[in-house]
């Protein structure tokens, strides 16, 4: 029963800088590319406990692929990845502007995080299922999901595949391995595990990949999903997209002052990989490693994708209110599009002319899709039949819905 010297005090984490301060990432230790070892994916967890504290990087500052995690991808694959990422960025920029013009109610960009969905969408199979966050339209871009369907969903118009029922960007695309999004963060992390367990239960060969933002790791859902994944050895890859911000809260509010997000794997006896989330090649290699583990009945892997949310949280947000101006530019791991482009150029498989041509092509594709969507109508100008409001509550509407539909005269 000792007493205190000094008195207790409550610690409230604060970020290294706020508006008006010089942005800095000096508090982070970023190891050089190629320095983290690559154990075999069949290694026991006890032999992997250093990995969560490293940072798997393949692309070095000169755009060369180095070290044991180099996935040695063909130039075609690299170009396909670049295309999906660039398309995502082009689409985001255009749709974000359309929100400013009042054509929809809401939008969220993936700026700076395009590598994640694009790359993992390519690594995983057509029958696998992603349980994405709202910052992963790049998953769909890599699988050539029709742009106009995205636009129609965003406009909640008569052609909206989700029948006007859902907030813009909260897509669902089963055929593309993309589980239904919802506004609640985190609450689908456990469904990814359940889906993977179902595949194992059936003796199928599909695996699942689940995503959660670093801020959202604080939800009980995170822990519950990892517990089930570990106990039942579910064939699932669970990813923490650590973009360092949760709206206005820096990652210290989610625990980043004390350890890494990858280290949370240790609580469940699972491998935890910490990966440069702006490095297409590193993501590829880590995902492949985890997928192989899952497919060979070795269970789940937790992957932290260390990145930076280059834009605002959403159209409702203004990041200049809470973080130093120019922070994105200072982010030491750079921009994922630029880095993959640089790598392709370094390989001699890409050049500025081709890049400009690709950009022009994608800009045109987005323009055309938007035009097509606008022809159907923007939010408030066109919508599905109001009957759709009463459909899909249950498989068959009950008397309440039928009566209420009648009350509305439809």
């Amino acid at each position, binding site marked *: 029963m000792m007493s205190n010297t000094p008195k207790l005090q409550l610690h409230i984490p604060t970020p290294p800088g706020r508006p008006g301060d010089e942005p800095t990432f000096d508090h982070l230790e970023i190891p050089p590319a190629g320095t983290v070892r690559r154990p075999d994916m069949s290694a026991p967890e006890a032999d992997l406990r250093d990995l969560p504290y490293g940072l798997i990087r393949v692309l070095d500052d000169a755009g060369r692929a180095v070290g044991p995690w180099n996935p040695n991808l063909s130039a075609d694959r690299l170009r396909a990845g670049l295309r999906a990422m660039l398309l995502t960025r082009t689409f985001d920029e255009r749709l974000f502007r359309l929100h400013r013009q009042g054509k929809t109610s809401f939008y969220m960009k993936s700026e700076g995080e395009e590598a994640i969905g694009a790359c993992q969408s390519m690594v995983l199979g057509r029958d696998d299922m992603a349980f994405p966050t709202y910052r992963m339209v790049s998953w769909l871009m890599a699988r050539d999901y029709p742009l106009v369907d995205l636009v129609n969903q965003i406009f909640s118009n008569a052609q909206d595949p989700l029948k006007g029922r859902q907030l813009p960007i909260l897509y669902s695309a089963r055929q593309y391995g993309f589980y239904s999004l919802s506004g609640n963060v985190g609450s689908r992390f*456990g*469904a990814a595990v359940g889906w993977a367990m179902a595949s194992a239960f059936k003796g199928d060969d599909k695996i699942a990949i689940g995503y959660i933002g670093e801020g959202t790791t604080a939800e009980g859902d995170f822990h519950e999903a990892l517990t089930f994944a570990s106990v039942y050895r579910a064939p699932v890859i669970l990813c923490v997209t650590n973009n360092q911000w949760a709206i206005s809260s820096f990652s210290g509010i989610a625990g980043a002052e004390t350890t890494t997000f990858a280290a949370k794997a240790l609580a469940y006896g699972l491998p935890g990989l910490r990966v440069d989330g702006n490095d297409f090649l590193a993501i590829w290699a880590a995902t492949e490693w985890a997928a192989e583990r899952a497919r060979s009945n070795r269970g789940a892997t937790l992957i932290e994708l260390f990145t930076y949310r280059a834009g605002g949280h959403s159209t409702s947000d203004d990041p200049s209110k809470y973080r130093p101006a120019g922070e994105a530019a200072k982010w030491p791991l750079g921009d994922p599009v630029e880095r993959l482009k640089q790598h392709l150029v370094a390989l001699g498989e890409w050049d500025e002319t081709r890049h400009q041509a690709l950009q022009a092509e994608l800009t045109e594709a987005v323009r055309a899709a938007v035009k097509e969507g606008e022809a159907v109508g923007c939010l408030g100008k066109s919508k599905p039949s109001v009957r759709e409001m009463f459909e899909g509550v249950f498989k068959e509407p*009950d008397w309440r819905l039928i009566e209420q539909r009648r009350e509305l005269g439809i």
Partner: protein
Amino acid sequence: MPTMNMIQALNSALDVMLTEDPDTLIFGEDVGYFGGVFRVTEGLQRKHGLTRCFDAPISEGGIVATAIGMGAYGLRPIVEIQFADYILPAYDQLVSEAARLRYRSNGEFFAPITVRAPYGGGIFGGQTHSQSPEAIFAHITGLKTVIPSNPYDAKGLLIAAIEDDDPVIFLEPKRIYNGPFDGRYDQLLKVWAGEPGAEVPEGRYTVPLGKAALVRKGADVTVIAYGTMVHVAQAGIAESGVDAELIDLRSIVPLDIETIVASVRKTGRCVILHEASRFGGFGGELSALIQERCFYHLKSPIERVAGWDTPYPHAFEWDYFPGPKRLAAALIRTLEA
């Protein structure tokens, strides 16, 4: 036909479904080797194998989240929450995911899950082994809620719930697991054998969700109840001497509004009986619906007999529990009003 108590009937429903549909599976706390703290899943793991009926971590949210993912995959999971009181940590999963998945994804994904939970009081379980939370499910668009009152219905409704493509909350009145209980706690315990509803076919049959049962025909007042309260209602009606019509709702969503309205239009009077605390309980919805649809037929105010607006109190179980006496008094009041 064999005689079963409610536990055996539920067990039989699960056994039938595990046998007939390879996409069904059961998990929950202690349901595997042990067969559940109320033994509803007894023997199922042994018979159907480890992966068809297994223990889950103590994490109601995780249990339901996992079931939703399995349901989206194409399975038909049945999960047990050990007590309805402990369903609350899973409430967000039930409301924000299970109930809304079909709607928001335009039917691409849906959650054909069944969430079983022993429910209600009368067993001296104190605050957290006695509650009746049906109202917090009834209000949620996209959820169905079922509450059986006898073994026959329990089995038929459970099979219907499992086969249903929407998420179903299946609340099992634990006080009547082993025998009907009419609220007269000072009398000898009854068993199910020989009671109505205790003859239960071995194989598959369903009792459709959304169809109430007319338990007793009567001319003067309609009593609406579900679960254990169906038995309390019978005792209360007998005690009152009133010629009451008794409706057992069996499911509160979907609700058999037709049967209710037809009865109240005939009798002109209504008493609603439930165990849950009164304020904001499901009785309020029933009262409002009936008043809206039968206003000109009503001869006296619709009454609600329900748990008091207190937490479930251990020592005062029988003071809290809405028993036949309180119902009888309400029936007489209603008739004399």
